[in-house]
């Protein structure tokens, strides 16, 4: 009997530890405040004063606002919110966007008639939910998010140093802020700029998430006041600036071609074209019922860092044809894995799978980017800048890769009798989206963090390999996609060199 009791005790101890450990990112003071960021080159705004931020209210009124901070008493929840958002507004809104992407990244189910209904933006919470946040969709959502944050912050920095309002704790040193401080002038609030701009973009990208996003926005705008680093007028001016800049960014988004990216009417022409250039076996959906190809016209969406002529000129060359010696060699590699996939290969395939229910490969790389920015103690504006280049490179990678996929319309390994350990995407094989995305992001990150370049490039290579290990790409899809991605990322790197930030 006493053994049984001992076991019972062990059981109760063992079952206690179910907590899932996540890296906690603490608030930090930026390594540099980037005083000159107001003159950095923006993506959408023609200049940093395109949106007007009104002049300050009087010193007496500001003093009154500052004094009102002194009597403030925070609840435990409010303190927790300060710690959470204090790690970085750009960082947190990027995380929120990734969470939304994961929640919405599920392909629609077929209805009883065997037809896949198309998600409807006007009725986003109906089945199927809008959007289907697949990798191209998520790449685009994150790109616009980061661009809006960046442009709005450049403008905010311009006004901060134009108006040069001292932070509450500088004006009155009896005020003890709850977050690390810097010499950054406080008007307008950068946290409010980021919050409002992010809210506008994410609500447009995830229209069913109004209440969720409104709650995040309200908290994010309260935090700088709770933390005693801003007053209400800083927040109001920041929110207005953020909203105005985001509206301008959304004007581009509405006309970038995304609305026709799923135009299935062009598919017969795409197929005819692929045949005309000599493709013998074409891609065919392996799903049952047969699912229409994902976003066949995404390749026509407007790019960020190069033009249409460049897109066509850097398109990977035609892949080898089934039956050729090179094809047979790559097929044999897959057949070997199909027969005896190692646990290590499975682990790499799983780590990078980023399939349905995940934040997709663009989300994975945004996470890496955020972590690198935090490690380097980037200021908000520098973080947004880096993410804007990573984000636009990822969206460009998606566009150029999808253009390539539908240009060649090449078959998947599953059309040659192979299984998969990660799930099969429903679009043509050549080139690998993971490889293109990953090399594009890694080359941008290598540009920003040269001492970590080898790690990022090794990660990209592993992400690329993962699609061979998961058996859904031929080796050539990955090597050519990787080269393509590297070239795409380098356009962003070149652009970053001329924006005045370095």
């Amino acid at each position, binding site marked *: 009997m006493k053994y*049984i009791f001992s076991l019972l005790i062990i059981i109760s101890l063992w079952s206690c530890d179910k907590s899932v450990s996540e890296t906690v990112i603490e608030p930090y003071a930026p390594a540099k405040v980037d005083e000159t960021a107001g003159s950095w080159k923006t993506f959408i705004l023609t200049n940093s004063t395109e949106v007007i931020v009104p002049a300050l209210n009087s010193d007496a009124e500001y003093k009154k606002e500052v004094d009102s901070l002194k009597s403030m008493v925070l609840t435990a929840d409010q303190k927790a919110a300060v710690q959470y958002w204090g790690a970085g507004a750009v960082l947190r809104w990027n995380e929120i966007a990734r*969470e939304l992407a994961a929640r919405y990244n599920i392909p629609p189910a077929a209805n009883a008639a065997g037809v896949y209904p198309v998600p409807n933006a006007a009725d986003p919470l109906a089945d199927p939910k809008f959007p289907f946040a697949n990798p191209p969709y998520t790449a685009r959502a994150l790109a616009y998010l980061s661009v809006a944050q960046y442009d709005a912050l450049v403008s905010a920095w311009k006004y901060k140093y134009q108006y040069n309002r001292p932070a509450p704790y500088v004006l009155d040193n009896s005020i003890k802020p709850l977050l690390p401080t810097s010499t950054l002038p406080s008007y307008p609030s950068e946290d409010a700029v980021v919050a409002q701009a992010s809210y506008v973009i994410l609500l447009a990208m995830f229209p069913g998430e109004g209440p969720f996003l409104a709650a995040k926005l309200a908290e994010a705008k309260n935090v700088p006041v709770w933390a005693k680093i801003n007053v209400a007028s800083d927040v109001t001016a920041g929110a207005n600036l953020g909203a105005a800049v985001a509206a301008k960014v959304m004007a581009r988004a509405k006309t970038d071609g995304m609305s026709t990216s799923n135009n299935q009417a062009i598919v017969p022409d795409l197929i005819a074209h692929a045949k005309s250039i000599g493709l013998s076996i074409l891609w065919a959906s392996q799903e049952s019922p047969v699912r229409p190809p994902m976003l066949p016209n995404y390749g026509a969406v407007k790019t960020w860092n190069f033009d249409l002529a460049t897109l066509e000129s850097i398109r990977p060359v035609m892949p080898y044809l089934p039956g050729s010696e090179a094809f047979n060699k790559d097929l044999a590699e897959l057949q070997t894995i199909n027969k005896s996939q190692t646990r290590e290969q499975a682990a790499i395939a799983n780590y990078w799978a980023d399939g349905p229910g995940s934040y997709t490969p663009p989300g994975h790389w945004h*996470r890496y980017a955020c972590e690198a920015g935090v490690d380097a103690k980037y200021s908000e504006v520098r973080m947004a800048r880096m993410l804007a280049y990573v984000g636009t490179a990822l969206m460009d990678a998606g566009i150029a890769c999808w253009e390539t996929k539908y240009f060649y319309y090449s078959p998947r390994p*599953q059309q040659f009798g192979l299984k998969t350990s990660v799930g099969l995407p429903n679009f043509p094989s050549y080139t690998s989206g993971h490889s293109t995305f990953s090399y594009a992001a890694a080359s941008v990150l290598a540009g920003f963090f040269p001492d970590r370049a080898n790690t990022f490039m090794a990660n990209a290579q592993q992400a690329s390999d993962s699609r061979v290990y998961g058996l859904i790409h031929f080796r050539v899809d990955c090597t050519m996609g990787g080269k393509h991605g590297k070239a795409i990322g380098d356009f962003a790197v070149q652009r970053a060199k001329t924006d005045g930030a370095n």
Partner: protein
Amino acid sequence: MKKIFILLFCLLGFIELKAQMPHDGIYMNKKLACGALIYGNSSWTNYWENGLKRDNPNLGRLTTQSATAMVAYGITRDINVMAMIPYVKTDASQGNLMGQQGLQDVSVFVKTKTKAFHGVTAHGVVGFSVPVTNYVPDFMPMSIGLGTKSLLVRGMLTYALPSHLYLNSSIAYQARSKVTVDRDAYLGASTLYQSNQVSVPDAFDAAIRLGYLKKDNQLEIFAEHFSCTKGDDIRRNDMPFLTNDMTMTTVGIYGKYQPKKIGVNAKIAYVVDGQNVGQSTSISVGVLYQFKIK
């Protein structure tokens, strides 16, 4: 004191097992051992996606086959120990998901009994299970197991009825460890966890069995209900995940025929209702061999 033990065993709980012996009321005599090799085949075409019952032409019929080696040993007439290890293989009849196979989890149980009151015997079972290979737990529904370490407690009452009939009721609790997965982020409910650790919910089950037992021969019908203590639901058209609140009610029939040292057993079970699980039909057949350890 005994009654407190009985109550404790009845309140605590335990698990769904591949082999039946840890939740029956039968004991090996002292120093008597029984080895068994059991083949199991469980398959489903319909499953409950959250509460929606559906099929999936991209899976077709999902079949899980297992071969389990098991040994039971009588430490005394009232305390038995059992150990088992299954080799599991999964396969989908349609679609392109790769089947998985390998040794799954080793489990060890200790079962003990005491006479409670007239005609009623109280039993306590405690055990644990641990994965013996590094299989992929989150490639569901193809994965061969959940990858958790678990500890189990079962309380059981058996009632001796006339004409060799018996009634067996039990309730069990299974504490399950968190699992480390290959990926570094996942959704649990609607929260994104940036971690490779997944909290798998604990589970309980309750079962009632009515059977006939004469010498070593046995025939039994049973009903079991299995449920997690919490968890999320499969999202619309998504795959199942480790965090799901899996629930199922199973009915079945079990028989054992052991004229001498060598015997056979068989079981058929069918899931009549559930949530976040497949509606599986399971059969198993086993060969048993009794021997004395000196």
